[in-house]
């Protein structure tokens, strides 16, 4: 809402400097977003508290200022109205959703004169153009005292006015539209005998609107149920000042004030005569009373405020207070019936009045701090390990567009086809909640490759969302290019599946969780991997992750050219399991004895299987079998066998043991696996 400083001064005394006024408005919760010097004077664009319908006017803002400063409020001039109850020939209330309805007759005596520019200044400052005197006066009054009103052309009304719910299929020709539109059934409307005149509290209609030829006006000023107005505005997608005011809760005592203000403006400035005002409905003030415990409230707001001061400050906001030393009985005024219910609400008024920055600032006593949880420690360790390896942590969106399924090559019927689907996303790319992170990993890679950075290492702590609305937390990472560097003196090796396996081994060691590599074919993403270069990550007999090189066809679909990225993901629950207890092994006083044996191993037989064969015939004093060399062209693998015993080991014993292990390999694989010199 844009407000004119000079006009606000007609409602309450303010500091001289516009900047001081700005700070004062901020201090009372009327947040000034911008402050502009305009021909009419200083204009503030203010953000009002979303629950306070009474703020939507100069009078409401002035009341907040008065509550803080104690300055007396100044009131707008009103016409004296000839008020009488409406009978059925004038107004009928057929719905309890209208609390009070007033209709004031106004008739033009001679030619209509416009409102003077100085009177219109609050509207022009808010960039609202002058339309017709009656419309301008209505808009001004809404701004000024916070009571929306609507001027009908009385000569276009057919019979008495009825406030009722709309019927099925009923249409209304709303203002600013080209043709009648259907009104949702059950909407609160203002109607005459033949048509809808307006959507209650939201907007009027074209076929009862005032025009330049209008001589007689029927001025509506009413108060409607906030929920009814909100539902109507939402269903019909209408966003008007009146609706904004009513849906936050109107003041049922204000319609006559609003009518009197509009009438005053039209009579004083525009040449209208005021006729009778008819009132339908009888709003019963609940006089809600709140008992305020003085000591408790003093403690709560951190101010030793005497009860009489509390009472005085509350009256500035319109509350009535029955004084007392221990307790105050506070009556909620009609303009606050929608938001004040509890002692805490009263406390808020007192703090606002005293000043949010003026109350005491304390820090409650803390007996003991807290330690990081196991999960936090694991996350920190993983972060440290991956960052030390050159990985960057990233955050990707939790959703993607429907086209992602096609890019991944997922067809209908595929287990990954089903997603949690957004019902109302305004962005096309947010149609589906992701059920995998692979697509985003590849997009991230492509982004960097296109920026001439093919050496990429990224990871994310992410969630994926299953069609049953459950969520799975996982850690994923992607690497491409070299495993380190590349440096001028060290090109490193390719960041391949073996590299990821090494990372996982480090994770296992660092976290002390029982992660094993094994078959990958049970993992839901298996088909996206190079079948000969991937493995599953197993924990407690379950596949909890996968790692390896991505499938060439998948890379083609994502337009990844000349790159061989590797990807891993692991369910975080597998990382958060309690660590395996540490066991210390005393180092031996003896030196180990080492023998080496090399084999050519054909495709289809793993080095691990050969190692297992060696191990199967190993003596008790075998300490470790390590792979120390590998020639890819010949698939030649060198195993280093380390023996260690508390007894002295002779060369004969060692050689015999080694020969036995070599024989075991020969027995298992025959000529397929050949020993190299």
């Amino acid at each position, binding site marked *: 809402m844009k407000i004119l400083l000079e006009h606000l001064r007609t409602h309450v005394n303010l500091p001289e400097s516009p900047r001081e006024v700005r700070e004062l408005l901020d201090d009372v919760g009327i947040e000034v977003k911008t402050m502009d010097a305009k021909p009419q004077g200083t204009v503030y664009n203010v953000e009002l508290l979303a629950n306070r319908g009474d703020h939507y006017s100069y009078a409401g803002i002035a009341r907040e200022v008065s509550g803080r400063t104690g300055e007396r409020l100044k009131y707008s001039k009103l016409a004296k109205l000839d008020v009488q109850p409406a009978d059925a020939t004038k107004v009928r209330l057929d719905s309890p959703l209208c609390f009070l309805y007033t209709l004031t007759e106004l008739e033009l005596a001679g030619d209509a004169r416009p409102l003077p520019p100085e009177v219109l200044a609050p509207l022009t400052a808010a960039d609202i153009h002058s339309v017709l005197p009656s419309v301008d006066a209505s808009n001004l009054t809404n701004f000024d005292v916070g009571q929306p009103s609507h001027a009908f052309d009385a000569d276009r009304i057919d019979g008495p006015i009825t406030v009722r719910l709309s019927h099925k299929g009923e249409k209304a020709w709303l203002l600013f539209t080209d043709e009648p539109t259907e009104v949702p059934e059950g909407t609160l409307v203002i109607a005459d005998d033949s048509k809808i005149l307006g959507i209650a509290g939201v907007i009027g209609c074209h076929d009862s609107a005032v025009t330049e030829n209008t001589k007689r006006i029927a001025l509506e000023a009413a108060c409607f149920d906030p929920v009814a107005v909100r539902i109507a505005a939402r269903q019909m997608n209408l966003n008007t000042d009146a609706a904004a005011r009513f849906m936050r809760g109107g003041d049922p005592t204000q319609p006559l004030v609003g009518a009197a203000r509009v009438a005053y403006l039209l009579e004083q400035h525009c040449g209208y005569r005021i006729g009778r005002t008819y009132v339908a409905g009888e709003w019963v003030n609940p006089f809600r009373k709140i008992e305020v415990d003085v000591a408790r409230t003093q403690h709560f707001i951190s101010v030793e405020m005497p009860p009489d001061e509390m009472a005085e400050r509350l009256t500035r906001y319109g509350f009535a207070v029955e004084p007392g030393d221990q307790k105050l009985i506070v009556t909620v005024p009609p303009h606050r019936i929608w938001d004040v219910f509890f002692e805490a609400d009263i406390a808020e008024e007192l703090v606002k009045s005293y000043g949010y920055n003026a109350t005491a600032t304390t820090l409650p006593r803390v007996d003991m701090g807290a330690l990081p949880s196991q999960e936090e420690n694991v996350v920190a360790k993983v972060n440290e390990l991956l960052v030390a390896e050159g990985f*960057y942590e990233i955050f990707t969106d939790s959703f993607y567009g429907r086209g992602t399924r096609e890019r991944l090559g997922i067809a209908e019927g595929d287990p990954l086809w089903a997603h949690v689907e957004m019902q109302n996303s305004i962005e096309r790319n947010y149609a589906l909640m992701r059920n995998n992170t692979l697509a985003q990993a590849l997009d991230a890679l492509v982004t960097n490759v296109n920026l001439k950075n093919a050496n990429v290492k990224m990871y994310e702590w992410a969630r994926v969302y299953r069609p049953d609305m459950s969520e799975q937390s996982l850690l994923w990472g992607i690497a491409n290019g070299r495993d380190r560097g590349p440096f001028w003196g060290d090109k490193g090796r390719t960041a391949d599946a073996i590299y990821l396996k090494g990372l996982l081994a480090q994770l296992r060691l660092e976290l002390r969780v029982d992660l094993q590599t094994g078959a990958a074919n049970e993992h839901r993403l298996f088909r996206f991997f190079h079948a000969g270069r991937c493995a599953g990550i197993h924990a407690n007999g379950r596949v909890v992750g996968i790692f390896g090189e991505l499938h060439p066809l998948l890379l083609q679909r994502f337009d990844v050219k000349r790159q061989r990225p590797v990807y891993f993901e692991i369910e975080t629950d597998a990382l958060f399991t309690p660590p395996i207890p540490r066991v210390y092994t005393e180092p031996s006083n003896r030196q180990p004895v080492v023998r080496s044996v090399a084999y050519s191993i054909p495709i289809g037989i793993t080095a691990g299987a050969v190692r297992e064969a060696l191990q199967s015939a190993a003596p008790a004093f075998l300490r470790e079998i390590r792979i120390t060399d590998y020639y890819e062209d010949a698939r030649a693998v060198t195993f280093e066998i380390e023996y260690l015993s508390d007894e002295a080991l002779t060369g004969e014993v060692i050689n015999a043991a080694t020969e036995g292990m070599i024989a075991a390999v020969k027995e298992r694989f025959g000529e397929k696996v050949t020993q190299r010199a």
Partner: protein
Amino acid sequence: MSTHQTLETFRADLRAAETPDAIAELRTRYLGKKSYVKTALKSLGSMPAEERPKFAQEVNAAAATIERELDDATARIAEAAVAKQIEAEWQDLSMPGIAQERGSVHPLTTVHTSAMNVMRRLGFTIAEGPEIETPYYNFDALNIPENHPARDMQDTFWLPNNMLLRSHTTTVQARVLQQRPPLPIKVVALGRVYRNEAVDATHLAMFHQFEGIWVEEGLTFGDLKGTLLEIAKSIYGENHKFRFKPKYYPYTEPSVGMDMQCTVCLGKSDHCPSCRGAGWITILGSGMIHPKVFIEFGYDHTKLSGIAFGIGTTRIAAQASGITALKPLYEQDLRVHRSIHRGGL
């Protein structure tokens, strides 16, 4: 050959010796079993008794001299060899260093870690909750009933079966309160939240929040302010000015906004691009937990009170990283992340 001649010959040979092996050969030749020294000492028995002491003294002195000069030469040659090695092993240290370059955690993680450091000192622990939520935890339990304007404050992503994506991490607080843990309750929830907004440089459909609640008997508005100051100073540093202002959040009463004085104009410019002349930048929202929230979960709001606060950590991370837009934080251009991490180094 006399002792004197032997010494002279030795010295001539020594001058010609340039390697450790040559020195070793001289040591054998002049001090070994067949050397003049050993032979001369063996011959003492056949000499007249009165000549022996003088001769023995002369030979021993020569032996000591040879020994000393051989040691000196050994040291000299070794030193020269090392000097030569050092010269040969010169490295061009203008070449770039070689070590695995570290990556970096995300700036949001850095902010969360800093905030958690202070929260732990105050006894807070982390609680987690789902991102796919029911309207009950996102709205109704937090005093945002259906058809209340507050629902418009947060454009919601709706999912099938009347589920939604949480629009704030306050949902976690609702779930914690529902569990009725023992008092005091001190939990922090952090993570992704979602708003169905058109995305631009400063508006995101997904961003991060960091929220906390502290429920205990006797907590006051002053405690709320003190706690907020402690958190803000831990994140932004001690040398900033802060202020509080009334706000509206459905789940707190009173509700409080916290501003930090604009670090660009220090509140002195009406045209500052950072604060748009306000002089202040809002950094967090907070308040005392609303009685209706306590009532919803069966607590006695006349006896208990609670502090609640929420921080949009995405904006803080952007500020700390020195970037003006929020979107790059959620993009995967590693040049951006590297630049943030290196911070000009």
